[in-house]
């Protein structure tokens, strides 16, 4: 891994204009929890409801945008040669890119979680459910980065494809077709959250056939990372870079 490249990619991903937009997107669940909590009074399921509901699309979309931009923006802008033609192994370049995307997404995740904790404190909601969003968002950051950095490198319209995956595949088709939920990175991460928060009906419904379990979720995310880094290393080595 190249620390110089990591710092460069991290800074490039979190440029001011993009950061502000994505932060606004990431704190939407916290704002909704705050507004609903103030309007309706204390509700023990409020935070988990916000996480399993709204955050299931807002945060994956933010993660998708950052992951897809990591190498796709460089390819589209014509700046990829400045990082590709350097004495950095293809595996090192792949790992660095995924770590940079995950780190940038984690910044959003921690901000989102902090906002959720703040909202929960204000409205007297379940603080445990709010703080458990930290590992959830970190797992999402890692999983989506491992998935969409390589796909972003390979596919020109990856944001559209990614939106179809996040909105249609994970949220619509996975609820309608048994088994599709087992291909949902969001549910892998949510299984970690469900394990920490405890069994709740609304989380079970969101998970579908995916069993709650922190270690199971981590293992599945680990498989996604292995496949993603492997795919990206292969693509950097064997596919044209421009």
């Amino acid at each position: 891994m190249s620390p110089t490249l990591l710092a460069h990619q991290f800074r490039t991903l979190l440029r001011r204009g993009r950061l502000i937009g994505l932060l606004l997107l990431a704190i939407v669940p916290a704002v909704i929890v705050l507004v609903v909590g103030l309007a309706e009074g204390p509700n023990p399921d409020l935070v988990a409801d916000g996480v399993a509901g709204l955050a299931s699309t807002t945060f994956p979309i933010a993660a998708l945008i950052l992951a897809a931009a990591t190498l796709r923006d460089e390819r589209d802008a014509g700046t990829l040669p400045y990082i590709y033609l350097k004495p950095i192994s293809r595996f090192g370049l792949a790992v660095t890119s995924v770590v940079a995307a995950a780190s940038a997404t984690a910044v959003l995740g921690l901000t989102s979680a902090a906002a959720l904790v703040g909202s929960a404190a204000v409205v007297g909601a379940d603080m445990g459910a709010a703080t458990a969003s930290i590992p959830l968002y970190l797992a999402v950051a890692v999983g989506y980065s491992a998935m969409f950095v390589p796909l972003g490198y390979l596919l020109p319209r990856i944001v559209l494809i990614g939106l179809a995956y996040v909105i249609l595949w994970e949220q619509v088709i996975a609820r309608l077709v048994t088994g599709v939920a087992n291909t949902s990175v969001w549910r892998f991460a949510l299984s970690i959250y469900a394990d920490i928060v405890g069994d709740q009906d609304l989380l079970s419904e969101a998970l579908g056939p995916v069993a709650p379990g922190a270690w199971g979720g981590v293992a599945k995310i680990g498989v996604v990372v292995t496949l993603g880094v492997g795919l990206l290393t292969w693509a950097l080595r064997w596919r044209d870079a421009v």
Partner: protein
Amino acid sequence: MVGALAVSETGVITEHTIRLTEVSKWFGQKVAVSDVTVGFGPGVTGLLGPNGAGKTTLMRLITGLQRPSGGRVEVLGRDPRRDVDLYRRLILVPEDESVYAHLSAHQFVLLNARLMRTADPEAATARAIATVDLGDAAHRRLGEFSKGMRQRAKVAACLVSDPMVLILDEPLNGADPVQRAALINLFVKLGEEGRTVVVSSHVLAEVARMSSRIVAMVDGRLAAVGTVSELRAAMTDRPRQVRIETDRARELAGELMRLDGVAGIRLRQDTLDIEASDALGLARALPRIARDTGIRLRRVEPTDESLESVFRYLVGSR
């Protein structure tokens, strides 16, 4: 020997540092580079060709940005697609204007120095920026730079690692005349230091000024390789353009029309533009005609010795 390269007693590589053997590259049905076998050695080599000739693709193949569909590419005896350590010695200045607009020139060059693992990145950055004369603007954002200044920043970024092989894709684009002259001098100096410098450009006169050797491409194929004069000499069957200034143009035109080797004459006041299919015959006949008729020749000069005219001929003859 270093790999396939011959090295002199002083350590200077005397043969090809870049070697392409039967290299082809196609994108679907489109052939961008077809069966090219060519070598590039120390010094400046101009890579010429019209748009779509395959110059940029060839440069991308040399640097490993693209993988050949067929054939073999070697740089310093190594495969650029397999050996990333080669990038300590091999650099590309891409044709695209793109740079990281949010970085300053100093940050951009320093980033390259650090990614190249240069021993003293700050010092190397300062040297490279001074070399391209960007010192005053070093801390301005690249997004605020003119095209020519961006080109210089890109060249500075490539110089930080003290490369042996420089692939420069249209590096003079957007530079003003003073900057162009400075960059040309820089490339010539790098070539004289024993580095392999491959420069593509559409400004043919400038290529002729900086290049000891020309590689011309047309439609993805190698059209010609050699010095400008070698290319010129190789085209013996090519009609030559000659301009003559004289005090009796009409009369001289009549005399010249009798020669077999004159294909056409255009008369313009005191000037004749002659298309000669046998330039040597014309050169022999002209003094005799002038002596016999008393016509005074003020000026006789070829008008098609420029690289551009040579190149146009190569393109047109295919």
